[in-house]
């Protein structure tokens, strides 16, 4: 299995992590997995909401030492 592509958006605030994800997703292939690292809790809530709205697959969120790891798969 291919490794997840990490998008390190730590230190940025809303909607920075979402924008960094979208900019990167644009060049990703369908089926690729991504993991956004964010120190902004609002983005940890907002990114899954965006994924649901536009139809990419949300794989889960976990928090480690103040950093949220938001995993997803590009579906289209």
């Amino acid at each position, binding site marked *: 299995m291919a490794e997840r592509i990490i998008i390190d958006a730590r*230190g*940025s*605030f*809303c*909607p*920075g992590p*979402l*924008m960094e994800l*979208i*900019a990167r997703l*644009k060049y990703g292939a369908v089926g690729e997995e991504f993991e956004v690292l964010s120190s902004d809790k609002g983005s940890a809530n*907002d990114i899954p909401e*965006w994924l649901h*709205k*536009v139809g990419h697959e949300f794989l889960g969120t976990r928090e480690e030492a103040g950093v949220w790891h938001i995993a997803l798969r590009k579906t289209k």
Partner: protein
Amino acid sequence: MPMANRISIVVVSGSLERLQMAAMVASVGAVSGDEVTVFLSMNALRHFTRGTGEPPAAEGPFGRSLQEKKGPGYRQLFQSAAELGDAKIHPCSMAVDVLGVGPGDLEPWVREPLGLTRFLSDAHGAQVWTF
């Protein structure tokens, strides 16, 4: 496929907080599939000229806190709205005339000047946000 939500944003303030909030609404709306149109006028327009220029002033303590944080600024967010979400960002033709702004003086992602009549016509039936 459901019809896209339409969002029309009028930005007239030159304050950092209002520019930032307008940019947040424009960028998140545009990348979520909404059709976003932005109309820049009054004190806002000079903050969209190319180059560094004088940064917008904070109108309160929140804006001052914002200046100390790392994050996407309003120009970067509006650019993302235009480039990633196809938002249409236009200067108001009246404001362009008053400021004496030429074609090339504004950020490259700002489109041609738009008159108020056309903007109001486009905004008919859309959500309208004013900052």
